[in-house]
């Protein structure tokens, strides 16, 4: 006996060792407050659900940027790329599409079975007779190769449902003293089809990455030796590439449903693919081997592997950009229920009220902060009209989550795609917030009590030109409308373009709800507390209440130590920075806990009045 215990002791004498109990778990440090969500138009990216992009893969996942002068919708791409280069760890993107968007299949066929007999008259190929009942898997337009005494004959096949029905001789050539042989040297073809065909095919690839610019497919089969000769192989290596020939995915597996690898696991290519990514789907057709005579089989004369390489395959139709309110609702819904976490929402510089309104709904539903841009080419009066159209005063429970920026600045595009133009700064502000949030202290708190505004966070774009300088009265008008101007300011260390203010859109004048820093901290604490609440659901009531109390105490002490909370001057707070009550619900004491907490956050210095008095 190698151990002195058993795991389940019955009536016998012995020792039972129970499994290790782990009480060492502490809340993990996630990076959700270094990420933002956005619904946007892009030229690449899946359309069925949100996806993450980071600094390293943003171009391959979202595609190259297009110019804002072509469409204002392209500004969002600049926002995302710039934000990921300035502190945002990742972006959770829901691609905007209309109901007309459609994904097609890249269908690979391998013709086989047809025979071709050239008819010669006077040294010229005058026709070709099709045998083998036309075979299967052929595509109209595939070329015949003539081998014989003459030269110059050119012919292509005509097919119906993959069966060769006739051959069109476009040039009869000369010098054919005897009938040449004719074969289709490359019987493999790839076509883009909206549905999986009913006729025989090799395999069909569906790329859910949805590239407007198309994809390419390469594949090959290695030599398979049997009885000393090459035979058809069902194992292939498949590469899915972008149009720049950069490999996106490479898979090796079998087209046979029963194939197993050396460890007895499925080697069926669709299984191999689904284990690696959910962005590629492969359907195997009736043809399940690569012929030994195929140009995608084995090696060429100099020993290099033979690959079949497709041309550019445009398998995704964007379907235009005529986004309706329903399209925005669908995108916001997907972001709301995404498995990916993020703390901020950006409108990507959109000027669409329909998009902004749905982003506001998303902010409310998820308690996340929405930062939006008011077009920089508007005057202050027009900027106020723009923000008033959102009716934030009528959305009192949402307004504090909405932060509006107006930057009357023309700047060089940080991505280089556009020239000097108006580019919104709200997403850049999010990026700066993300960079700040990465700097947590020993208790896990980031300095969110510092607003991302003022001298500490200058605009780092090049070639900035301020196109409108508001008067004091207009600045007052903007502040009343809760619009944060981004403009030139003079400081003791020099002159900078900065986020001049840090106001939320809450329709309040003296409440701390008007400060972005307070909303940053309060949403963070709400998020932490509600997540903990999920952890203790379904535990016994007493235990859940004890754990909740302990968690709140620890959390709020940490917040105080991190200067997130300061002593309150509210009499009911008794001079403390926080107060909480955890108790069973009076009416539903068996299954409901009421948790209330009162917190006093520090403010942000927005105004200073200096007065000098001359004395004798």
């Amino acid at each position, binding site marked *: 006996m190698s151990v002195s215990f058993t795991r389940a002791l019955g009536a016998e004498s012995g020792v039972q060792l129970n499994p290790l109990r782990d009480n060492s778990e502490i809340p993990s440090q996630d990076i959700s407050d270094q990420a933002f969500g956005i619904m946007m138009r892009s030229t690449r990216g899946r359309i069925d659900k949100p996806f993450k992009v980071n600094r390293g893969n943003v171009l391959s996942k979202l595609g190259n940027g297009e110019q804002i002068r072509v469409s*204002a919708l392209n500004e969002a791409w600049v926002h995302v790329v710039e934000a990921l280069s300035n502190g945002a760890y990742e972006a959770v993107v829901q691609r905007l599409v209309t109901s007309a968007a459609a994904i097609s299949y890249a269908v690979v066929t391998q013709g086989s079975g047809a025979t071709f007999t050239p008819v010669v008259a006077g040294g010229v190929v005058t026709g070709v007779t099709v045998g083998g009942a036309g075979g299967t898997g052929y595509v109209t337009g595939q070329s015949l190769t003539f081998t014989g005494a003459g030269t110059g004959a050119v012919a292509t096949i005509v097919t119906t449902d993959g069966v060769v029905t006739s051959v069109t001789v476009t040039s009869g050539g000369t010098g054919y003293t005897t009938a040449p042989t004719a074969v289709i040297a490359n019987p493999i073809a790839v076509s883009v089809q909206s549905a999986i065909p009913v006729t025989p095919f090799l395999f069909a690839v569906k790329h859910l990455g949805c590239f407007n610019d198309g994809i390419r497919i390469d594949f090959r089969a290695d030599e398979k030796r049997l009885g000393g000769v090459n035979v058809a192989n069902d194992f292939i290596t498949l590469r899915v590439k972008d149009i720049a020939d950069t490999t996106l995915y490479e898979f090796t597996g079998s087209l046979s449903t029963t194939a197993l690898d050396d460890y007895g696991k499925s080697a069926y290519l669709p299984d191999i693919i689904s284990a690696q990514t959910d962005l590629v789907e492969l359907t195997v057709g009736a043809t399940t081997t690569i012929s030994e005579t195929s140009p995608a089989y084995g090696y060429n004369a100099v020993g290099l592997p033979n690959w079949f390489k497709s041309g550019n395959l445009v398998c995704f139709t964007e379907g*235009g*950009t*005529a*986004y*309706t*309110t329903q399209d*925005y609702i669908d995108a916001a819904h997907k972001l709301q229920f995404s498995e990916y976490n993020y703390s901020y929402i950006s409108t990507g510089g*959109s*000027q*669409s*009220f*329909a998009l902004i*309104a749905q982003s506001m709904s998303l902010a409310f539903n998820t308690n996340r902060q929405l930062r939006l841009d008011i*077009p920089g*080419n*508007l005057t202050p*009066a*027009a900027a106020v*009209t*723009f923000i*008033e*159209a*959102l*009716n934030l005063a*009528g959305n009192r429970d949402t307004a504090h989550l909405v932060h509006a920026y107006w930057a009357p600045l023309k700047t060089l595009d940080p991505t280089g795609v556009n020239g000097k133009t108006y580019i919104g700064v709200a997403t850049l502000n999010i990026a700066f917030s993300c960079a700040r949030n990465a700097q947590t202290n020993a208790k896990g708190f980031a300095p969110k009590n510092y607003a991302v505004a003022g001298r500490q966070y200058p605009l780092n774009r090049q070639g900035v030109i301020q196109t409108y300088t508001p008067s004091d009265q207009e600045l007052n008008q903007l502040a009343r409308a809760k619009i944060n101007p981004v403009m030139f300011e003079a400081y003791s260390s020099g002159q900078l373009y900065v986020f001049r203010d840090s106001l939320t859109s809450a329709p309040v004048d003296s409440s701390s709800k008007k400060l972005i820093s307070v909303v940053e901290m309060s949403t963070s604490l709400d998020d932490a507390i509600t997540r903990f609440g999920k952890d203790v659901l379904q535990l016994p009531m007493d235990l859940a209440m004890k754990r909740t109390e302990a968690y709140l105490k620890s959390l709020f002490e940490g917040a105080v130590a991190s200067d997130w909370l300061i002593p309150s001057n509210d009499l009911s707070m008794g001079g403390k920075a926080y107060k909480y009550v955890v108790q069973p619900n009076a009416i539903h004491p068996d299954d409901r806990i009421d948790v209330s907490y009162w917190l006093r956050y520090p403010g942000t210095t927005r105004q200073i009045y200096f007065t000098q008095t001359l004395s004798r």
Partner: protein
Amino acid sequence: MRSIKLGAPPLNEVGAVDQINETFGKDDFPTLLRFTNLAAHRANFSELNGLDLEPCFNEDENFADVEVPSWDALVRVAASIEQVASNYGHAEFIEVSDIPDESDDELDDAIKTTRTTRKKRGRT
């Protein structure tokens, strides 16, 4: 002359996008259309070439003739008009119409009014 009035969807039987589809769905783009503010407050739809309209009582400034670059752009701005109309509770907010030709203007002038309207272009 074709004309539709866009407003808040719950108060209209047909949504804004359906309305413009019925009226302008077969147009070739780009096309020139007139946008008129029917509300008593300023309306700004900068997504459509900086469209900025004064309140309805300012008869010389409450409309603009705008080159709509594409059908997609018209649908998007219709969605925005619908959204803002919902926010304000306007059953009729923005009128989208063809631009009256000069003969229409002359006829109007001759018949009953001496009012002159100043056409203005949306900012680009």
